[in-house]
């Protein structure tokens, strides 16, 4: 951003500030200062009501590393990265690989559907999948009975063993269409001559995919990885509307732990420390996106 490039002779150098100010003030008051305040609160022991807050330095952070709840929550977030990020990217790449080459008539319709889970409220997604996973009347168990796999029926979301992968697979359902659309948009940049030349040289489909498609999609894969990872780290609405962290703490995630600790149980400092850790991880990932994009010099 070049300062002053746009000014006309004799124009007030501060003019832009008047246009920026309304947005900036709301942003500072309701986003930026709260971020700083969360950070500050993480160094205190405070219940949110009394005037007295005790400064305890890094104690909230130190405690986190021996806190079984936090460790459980963060490890569940890591499991969610597999379901939200890795599996959808593999499915997206596979679909993109299948669609390499000539255009598919009617593809616009498919794209509309594939993107649909992205626009639906996660609470609605939770309602839909609680029904799908319902142990008695849910379509998934009904389907298993239908194909003779009665012994595979589970109380999916109510089971200590299966609740986490069950909720995780909802994340896969939400994300793979997004990955696919992202990759297909990227593939339009790869010149078809590359594939033609490769075919002439005798490279088969798999080789073409490895040596042309994957390198060509490098930046899209990076973006998909990071946005879906952030989604996996931030997951809250879906947990609230499916399992509320249960059964036990088997689907507890950091977002839900922050809510439970700071809002429901008034452990402000503790919740703020978790929120700060989560924010730092997400910021680091977001900066990685920007690095990826800066390298590629791609028009947005």
């Amino acid at each position, binding site marked *: *951003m070049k*300062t*002053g490039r*746009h*000014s006309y002779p004799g124009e*007030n*150098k*501060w*003019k*832009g500030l*008047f*246009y*920026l100010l309304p*947005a900036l003030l*709301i942003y500072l*008051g*309701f*986003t*930026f*200062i*709260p*971020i700083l*305040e969360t950070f500050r*609160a993480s160094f205190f022991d405070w219940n*949110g009501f009394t005037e007295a807050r005790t400064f305890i330095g890094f104690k909230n952070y130190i405690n986190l590393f021996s806190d079984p709840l936090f460790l459980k929550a963060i490890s569940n977030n890591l499991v969610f990265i597999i379901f939200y990020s890795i599996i959808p990217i593999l499915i997206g790449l596979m*679909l993109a690989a*299948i669609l390499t080459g*000539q255009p*598919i*008539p009617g593809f616009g319709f498919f794209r509309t559907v594939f*993107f649909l889970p*992205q*626009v*639906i*409220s996660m*609470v609605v997604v*939770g*309602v*839909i*999948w609680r*029904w799908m996973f319902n142990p008695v*009347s849910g*379509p998934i168990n009904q389907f298993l009975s239908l194909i003779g796999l009665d012994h595979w029926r589970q109380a999916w979301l109510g089971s200590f063993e299966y609740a986490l992968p069950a909720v995780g697979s909802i994340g896969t*359902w939400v994300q*793979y269409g997004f990955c696919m*659309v992202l990759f297909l948009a990227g593939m339009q940049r790869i010149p078809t001559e590359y594939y033609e030349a490769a075919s002439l040289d005798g490279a088969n489909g798999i080789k073409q995919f490895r040596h042309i498609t994957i390198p060509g999609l490098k930046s899209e894969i990076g973006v998909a990885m990071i946005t879906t990872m*952030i989604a996996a780290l931030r997951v809250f*609405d879906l947990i609230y*509307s499916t399992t509320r962290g249960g059964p036990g703490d088997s689907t507890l995630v950091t977002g839900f732990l*922050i809510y439970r600790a*700071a809002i429901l149980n008034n452990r402000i400092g503790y919740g703020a420390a978790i*929120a*700060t850790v989560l*924010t730092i991880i*997400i*910021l680091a990932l977001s*900066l990685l*996106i920007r690095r990826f*994009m800066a390298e590629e010099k791609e028009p*947005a």
Partner: protein
Amino acid sequence: MSIRWKRLLPRYLVLIVFMLIVLLPIWGMLMSAFKTDTQIASSPFTLPETLTLENFKQAWTVGKFNIFFKNSVIVTTAVVISSVFLSTLSGYAFGQLPMPGKNLLFPLMLLGYMVPFEAVIIPLYNWMDALGLRNTYLALILPQIGLSVSFGTLWMSTFFENAPRELVDAATIDGCNRWQTLWLILWPLAQPATTTLIVLIFMWTWNEFLLALVMVQTEAMRTLPVGLAFFQGKYTSNLSLMAAGAIIVALPTVLIYVIFQRFFIRGMLGGAIKG
């Protein structure tokens, strides 16, 4: 069958399978909204035998979705209009106007786009509580504007930076001041960028859950997603009613998405790429 179709058919089959996986659960929920619970259990994905809106009527009145809908419309309208207006001004400031400290202010605004709501929710909750502003529209609207203008400023500044320089110069020579240049010359050109911003902020606000969950205690102030979540807790066995509620929550965003698809996908991908 032509050779072309022989090559296309396997691709279509794979596409259709993955499309059905996305579509079937949504389709099933839509169909359930028109059935009774026993019908849902016996044949979840078939078309309803009779077209009755009874479930919707029940959800709308007994389930109080009429109130949640009204709240969502008020909050979303206020957030979208203010955010888009403020973002146009601030984006213009970054993209076109002389301003001190641009290099500092830009990353400052960018931060808000990258942090999760969890980073701000605890102090916001305490402050709104102390000010007695919980259970008000303001508590839902102001923080949402704060986050929205962060993305909006980045989005609009990209447009204004790339706006044709000659046009702006010509307008200035013709005697337009900066305010007039913005609204008379550039604003009409900004329609695609603005449309994308409107649909994205609409979707984010309509679907926002954590903020509304934390700020609102009374049933009368709940927005649709929070209303649905509590409804689910209360009528856990009444699936047909819940399906109708879920459809009421999802329908507006799906409709807007289908109508403005081009803008939506560009914004989502562009937003991700802009980071």
